[in-house]
């Protein structure tokens, strides 16, 4: 069930010889992915699994975007079809493909090339996309004046301006900024040192060796749980400490997910460089990496090694985990949860990026060990928001059409609270149903931590 061995399907023929064609290219945008088309025998399973193609007849689908378009390309050609911008980067095609075609790698690289070569750097679309994908750059400002920011963002005038000036769907409500970021809380609480002490105390309480260098994790919290939902990040810290783990919070930048999705590969490269350096350091210090956001872990595990070749990229990818997955592998969660009780019902949606990591079944299974809880999986459809995708005025309708199946299934479920691991899926779930949405780690915290 769990993906402990990280069987990522990024096989490109020729790698076996230790042959590195990449070294002569200065930038990943120039990467030649034509050989990846060798794996495609055109079965079209990717197209039938693509949520965008399902609702948008104009979208040619992943088979065209990936292997077909690459195969038609010559080294000097720079005219990627504009339809690549309609791809939401849900990456379902990767797991749908029976033949290891590196689809999302092809899409990411093609999209970057399209933005670089074909999109005007003066266009509204470019700046809107740049802003959306660099949300991490704007968030600190908002977080400094969270109440003002939330007030301004909530104004209908702001939303109207957002759509007219920037092309951001006015139907969407901007996520609220927390009054205190996770990192501020973490520092106030005493940082890594406090966590080490708490872990030691927990181990003593649990009757374990008080000194255990193996129970050490570095937390990649990402942007959203830092600025918007620190309660998720706090839940992770408390659950891990409760189980005797010392938590470190390294310096970090955005995981790059929104940047890949918008073809801003240079921005993503800068962010990834920081992350790989900091996380590699943490691994050097004996920690494993865990993330609470399924897109963050996906990005570090799959996209980094596909698109970048900084020193340590492979090692960081191989040692990064989803936070719940890590506990399932390293702890006996069923035993830990025995006798715990949470009286609640949840409608659970597995995010595409969790699904791609093989994690779509774990939440229902883990939580079922808690008494009084009822978690209903609302099916395998895509929520439709795919990060920044559903925020764009031109995609809003498509995004809601894709989400329709999930909304219906949530309505049909007994529960009136939603549950998921992805911040933007959570926005979409809330937007479509009006439900409160919570994170699996928060439920685990309620069960395990007093």
């Amino acid at each position, binding site marked *: 069930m769990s993906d402990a061995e990280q069987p990522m399907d990024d096989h490109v023929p020729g790698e076996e010889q230790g042959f590195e064609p990449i070294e002569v290219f200065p930038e990943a945008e120039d990467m030649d992915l034509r050989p990846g088309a060798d794996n*495609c*025998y*055109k079965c079209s399973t990717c197209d039938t699994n693509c949520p965008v193609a399902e609702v948008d007849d104009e979208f040619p689908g992943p088979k065209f975007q990936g292997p077909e378009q690459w195969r038609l390309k*010559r080294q000097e050609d720079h005219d990627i079809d504009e339809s690549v911008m309609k791809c939401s980067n849900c990456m379902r095609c990767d797991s749908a493909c029976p033949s290891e075609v590196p689809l999302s790698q092809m899409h990411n690289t093609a999209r970057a090339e399209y933005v670089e070569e074909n999109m005007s750097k003066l266009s509204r679309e470019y700046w809107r996309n740049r802003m959306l994908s660099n949300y991490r750059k704007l968030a600190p400002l908002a977080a400094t004046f969270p109440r003002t920011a939330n007030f301004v963002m909530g104004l209908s005038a702001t939303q109207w301006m957002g759509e007219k000036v920037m092309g951001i769907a006015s139907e969407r409500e901007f996520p609220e900024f927390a009054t205190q970021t996770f990192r501020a809380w973490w520092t106030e609480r005493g940082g890594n040192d406090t966590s080490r002490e708490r872990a030691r105390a927990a181990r003593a309480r649990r009757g374990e060796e008080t000194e255990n260098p193996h129970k050490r994790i570095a937390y990649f919290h990402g942007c959203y749980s830092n600025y918007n939902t620190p309660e998720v990040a706090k839940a992770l810290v408390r659950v891990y400490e409760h189980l005797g783990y010392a938590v470190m919070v390294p310096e970090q930048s955005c995981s790059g997910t929104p940047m890949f999705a918008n073809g801003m590969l240079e921005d993503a490269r800068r962010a990834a460089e920081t992350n790989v350096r900091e996380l590699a350091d943490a691994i050097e210090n004996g920690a494993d990496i865990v993330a609470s956001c399924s897109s963050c872990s996906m990005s570090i595990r799959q996209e980094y090694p596909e698109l970048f070749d900084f020193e340590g990229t492979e090692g960081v990818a191989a040692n990064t985990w989803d936070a719940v997955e890590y506990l399932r592998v390293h702890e006996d969660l069923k035993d830990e949860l025995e006798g715990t009780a949470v009286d609640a019902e949840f409608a659970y949606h597995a995010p595409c990026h969790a699904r791609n990591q093989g994690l779509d079944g774990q939440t229902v299974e883990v939580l079922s060990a808690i008494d009084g809880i009822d978690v209903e999986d609302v099916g395998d459809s895509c929520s439709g928001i795919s990060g920044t995708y559903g925020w764009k005025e031109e995609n809003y309708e498509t995004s809601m059409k894709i989400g329709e199946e999930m909304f219906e299934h949530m309505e049909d479920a007994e529960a009136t609270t939603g549950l998921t691991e992805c911040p933007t899926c959570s926005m979409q779930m809330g937007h479509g149903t009006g439900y409160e949405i919570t994170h699996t780690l928060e439920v685990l915290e309620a069960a395990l931590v007093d």
Partner: protein
Amino acid sequence: MAHDTEVLVLGGGSTGCGIARDLAMRGLEVTLVERGNLTDGTTGRMHGLLHSGGRYAVSDQASAVECIEENEILREIAGHCVELTGGLFVQRPEDPDDYFREKLEGCRDCDIPARVLSGREAREVEPYLAKDVKRAIQVPDGAVDPFRLCVANAIDAENYGARIETHAEVIDLLRDGDDIYGVTVRHDSGPGKHTHKTPGTTEDITAEYVVNATGAWAGQIGAMADLDVEVRPSKGVMTIMNVRQVDTVINRCRPKGDADIIVPHETTAILGTTDEEVSDPDDYPEEKWEVDMMIDTLSELVPILEEARTIRSFWGVRPLYEPPGRGTKDPTDITRDFFLLDHAERDGVSGMSSIVGGKFTTYRAMAEEISNHVCDQLGVRASCATAKEALPGSENLAVLEEGMDDFGLRSPIARRSKQRLGSRSQEVLETDDPNPVVCQCEGVTRAEVQDAIEQSGSDLNAVRIRTRASMGNCQGGFCCANMANELHPEYDEETTREALDELFQERWKGERHALWGEQLSQAMLNYALHATTMNRDNDPASRTEGVDYGVFDSGAQTASPARSDGGKRTDGGDRADGSRSSSDLRSDGGER
């Protein structure tokens, strides 16, 4: 005596079509007959190299000089058939330094622009080259599409009034004493455009002069008039890779040997080749070791080939010739020069010349020389214009490229379509009708397919060579039914089915040499698709005998001990269940 035509050209390859165009442009009345489709012989079975002359710069400098001259002419007159890829002669550590030096000097002697690159620089040009390559010589090799080039010559010949008859096999030479005055042909489906299922006819075509440009088949034609043409057909294998691992022509820089060239060709890369004499150009073995050797040997230069996908392999036969008495044993030592055999001089039989030897890159120069000879014979004074006059599709390419739009197509499809159609793009692609993509692998739209059908009739292989539809990684699995569909309603259902079968069969001929790895998966999927959606594994409608209802199970029965097959399955396995009724034995021996 009045003749049907002034000049009759036998053979619709590059030489024949080149001659037909040249003579037609000089104002002569020309008829060309070809046994199958244009390019069906050696022209359609080559690796698509537009020689810079570098390959002959050591062994045959006269040919090398001719190659670089023609190379430069073809870039001008056939821009839409040529891709200026550049080429490299790559030296591996074990390849001789002496030869590298000779090659470089040879190129300079022949005025072939040549530049030495270090191993590192060579890998910057072609990242997939092996890491240990020593150095390389950069030359202006190119890639050429022999199909489009040959077809463009034929179209232009027609524009100048020539009659081009495909599917017209010469079955006899008309000889009166010591004069050849024409041929008898058998039209597969009557004269004009090829239409399946139309009854065949024979026709005598008389001419003032006959040019035998049938290449490797020249000996067979000669024999019809008791003339001895000592052509020595030599086969070579070529293996097509699914994608272009290289965008430059890669030659191995060593004296000679098999498997020493990779040519980027359209969306693919072609590996070549071998050189082995065969007795019959229509019947020779196609062997697995030849394909294996291509991949193994060329992987030394480009290691990724070892793991890369092959979509098909094909064999071509060179029309090698050497004048009597030389007695060269090894076909690789036979000259690549061409020979004009005037049978009047040689055998005392007037009215015909045969062309043998030669190579694709210099087809135009050959055609010019032969046309001069023909004009001398006929007493015609007219000069050759083929080196100046662009072929249809290559007129004003530079001007057109700027102004052309995308015709509502997705950009990679539009780019590929325009590369194929050249200056004909607008005329072909501009349409108010829906223009869906028919062949996804190669990006060929309905408009382009329809244009080809207009040119060539119901023959889908003729559509294939004009458009590249069905030449991509699925080898027609997904598109050949859609291509056949484009024949309807102009052609009836029976014709359409026959055309479909013929195309799919031709695709299979080459694909069967690539059945491992991904191409095997592709073939399996193609089979399943065709079986389940078109009943092509066992279509009751195509059966000639009636259905034997007696062999079907008539429902639940009491167990019958009568058995006639000894309890063995037809696939050789033992039956686990020995009590099945005999009524499940099918007359065809299969179990469904």
